[in-house]
Structures are given as structure tokens and as C-alpha cells.
């Protein structure tokens, strides 16, 4: 009964889970991670980004404040207008505060890009299907909020154009990277939010 209610409305029944491998597609999309100050979401995207950036301090990954990565990126982008800020987060994390698209859209920070590594699942908690596996379209939600540049990347051939888009400095952008529900890279990272904060600030500001 609850699942019938959940599937009501106009959402298509067919699975829209992607086919790209995140361990290959995320590094291709991001390219040189030093081009960005990066805020990573939880779990999978934290590992995607840590794997690319370690041991450098140009990224800050969350682990328990689900729904905040995009807003963190907004605060950072407003504070550092000459740097390109990249948020890399998952579909579940974005869905928790999808209203932040609206907040970003009205602020229109020219130096903020958001990448959703969309595997259609809550990977960290056992790969339960997320709403994006059941027809919910985050790109349409972002476009509806008014994010000016939105792309959905489903094939490898589309990555290069999206990689160029997230490097532009004239408007916020949002890229959905449709990937398979497979594990992120194995990487050790600190869960100490204060230590990682100091490392980020030392790298960026040269001061605590």
C-alpha cells in the first residue's frame, strides 16, 4: 500500500538508473581537481572526491549533515568569488534539500557548479532505490528552479561538454551524471570535521 502511494502521479515506472561507471566517469568529468574548491556530499561522493584530491586540502567532505552540501557550496562561492566552487553530491543528498536549487538560482553565483553523481540508490545504507530510480528528474527540478545551465550526462561522449560547462564562470550550472549503482573508490579519509576544516582553510587562506 505505501509503495502504491509512493508511485502515484505522473512518475514513470521504468528504471532510469545510469550505465556509466562512477570510478571512471567522475574523474573524467572533474578533470584536474585543483581547478576547483570542492564540497563533497556524503558517503559515495565523499569517497569519489577524496580519491581524486587526497592528500590535498582543496576539498571538504560531509558525513552526517545530509542535505547541506549545495548550501555549503553557496556560502563558499559567495566568500570566494574568484575561485570556481564545485559541489559533488549524490541523488539522495540532493533530494533531502532540493529547495536549495531555488536559493542558488535567485543568488545566481557565477562561480558555483553542482554535480550530482546519480546512481539512483541510497548506496551507503544498502542500495535502496532512490526517487531518481523511480522517475524523478533532478535536472528538471534544477531547471524549474531557474538554474541557468543544466545537463544530464548518460553517455561517455557527453562528459567533455559537461566538464567544460562546470569550469565556466558566468552562471551556476548543474550536471547530473547517471551512473550504475556500484561502489565508489575505496579510500581512507578523516571523519574529523574540525581537522578537515582546518586543512581546507590552511590550504585556501594560509591561516586558521
Amino acid at each position, binding site marked *: 500500500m505505501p509503495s502504491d502511494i509512493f508511485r502515484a502521479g505522473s512518475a514513470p515506472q521504468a528504471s532510469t538508473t545510469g550505465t556509466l561507471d562512477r570510478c571512471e566517469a567522475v574523474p573524467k568529468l572533474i578533470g584536474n581537481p585543483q581547478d576547483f*574548491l570542492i*564540497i563533497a556530499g556524503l558517503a559515495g561522493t565523499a569517497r569519489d572526491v577524496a580519491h581524486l584530491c587526497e592528500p590535498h586540502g582543496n576539498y*571538504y567532505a560531509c558525513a*552526517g*549533515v*545530509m*542535505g*547541506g*552540501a*549545495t*548550501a*555549503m*557550496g*553557496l*556560502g*563558499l*562561492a*559567495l*566568500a*570566494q568569488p574568484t575561485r570556481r566552487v564545485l559541489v559533488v553530491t549524490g541523488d539522495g543528498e540532493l533530494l533531502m*534539500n532540493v*529547495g*536549495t536549487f*531555488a*536559493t542558488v538560482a*535567485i*543568488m545566481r553565483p557565477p562561480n558555483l557548479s553542482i554535480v550530482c553523481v546519480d546512481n539512483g540508490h541510497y548506496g551507503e545504507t544498502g542500495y535502496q532505490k532512490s526517487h531518481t530510480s523511480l522517475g524523478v528528474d533532478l535536472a528538471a527540478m534544477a531547471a524549474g528552479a531557474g538554474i541557468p545551465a543544466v545537463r544530464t550526462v548518460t553517455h561517455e561522449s557527453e562528459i567533455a561538454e559537461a566538464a567544460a560547462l562546470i569550469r565556466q564562470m558566468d552562471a551556476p550550472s548543474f550536471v547530473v551524471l547517471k551512473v550504475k549503482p556500484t561502489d565508489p573508490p575505496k579510500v581512507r579519509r578523516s571523519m*574529523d*570535521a*574540525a581537522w578537515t*576544516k582546518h586543512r*581546507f*582553510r590552511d590550504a*585556501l*587562506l594560509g591561516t586558521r
Partner: protein
Amino acid sequence: MAEALMWPDEIYRILRAWNVTQFSYVPDAGHTVLINRSLEDPEVHSVALTTEEEGVAMLAGAHLGGAHGVVLMQSSGVGNCVNMFSFVKNGQFPMLILVSMRGDFGEGNPWQMPMGQAVQPVLEACGFLCMRVEQPTEVPAALQAACTMVYQAGQAVAVLLSQQLIGAKAF
């Protein structure tokens, strides 16, 4: 009387003196003057949020980037932020929030009471030091103290602007 009318402007002056450049809020009658002042100020970012917890995450991002921010919220908004307050105890991020109180002195709307009465215990459980302001004359010293603790000592401080100060909303 002039003093009573001027206290929100005094808050704005003190925040700007501490180089606060990110003002975020869910629109609220109790913060009208601060919100309008931030909208009129070309030197700051005035950010309308869809939920207060976005503002808490923005404060963390602003601090990573070396900027000072503040979140203006109504007492009910505190309840929307609780998980995001993890930045305080795990991350030791400095945070300043100004809470316009409902559900306390003279409240006429029973829906405001549960969260209004929960504000201080919830904030304290999350690692905030709460400073309650009830008289206009207390405002400047309280804000100055709060800004010093947040932007100099790196603490998380909530200034609770009581309904005695703001005036209870008439229904």
C-alpha cells in the same frame, strides 16, 4: 522610544562592523529591519533561504572561505536545523544565529508554543551558547559580546530576541 525603534539598526551596524557579509534568512516579521538593511547594502549578500538549515550549511561554507555570516531565523526555524548543527560539535565551526522568538512571552498562537519553548534546550544540546535579550538597551552589548565570541573565539552563539523585545504578534 527612539531607542526601542533603533535596536535592529544597531544590530545591523554591529554585524557590519564585524565584517559580516552573508545574511541569510527565511523571511520573518521579527527580522524585517535586518533583512531590509541587508537587501539595500551592496557590500553584502542577502540570501533568502527555503529552509533555515540551508543557512547553517552556508555559514560552514562561508567560514571555509574566510567570510563572516549570520543566519536570521524565527524560533520555529531552529527545529529545521537540528541535524545541520552537527557542524558545531564535530566541526567546531563558528556560528552566529539570531532567533526572533515566538512561543514565549505573551504568545497568542498555540502552534508557536512547542518549538518556542524548545529553542533554548535544543540549541544548548547542539552546542550553542544562548544569549537572551529582553530589553532594547541590552541589545548592543549582547551583539558585541556574541560577535566577539563567534568571530574571534570561534564559538557557536545564538542570540534569542524575546517577544518582550520584539513585541508579541497580535492575532
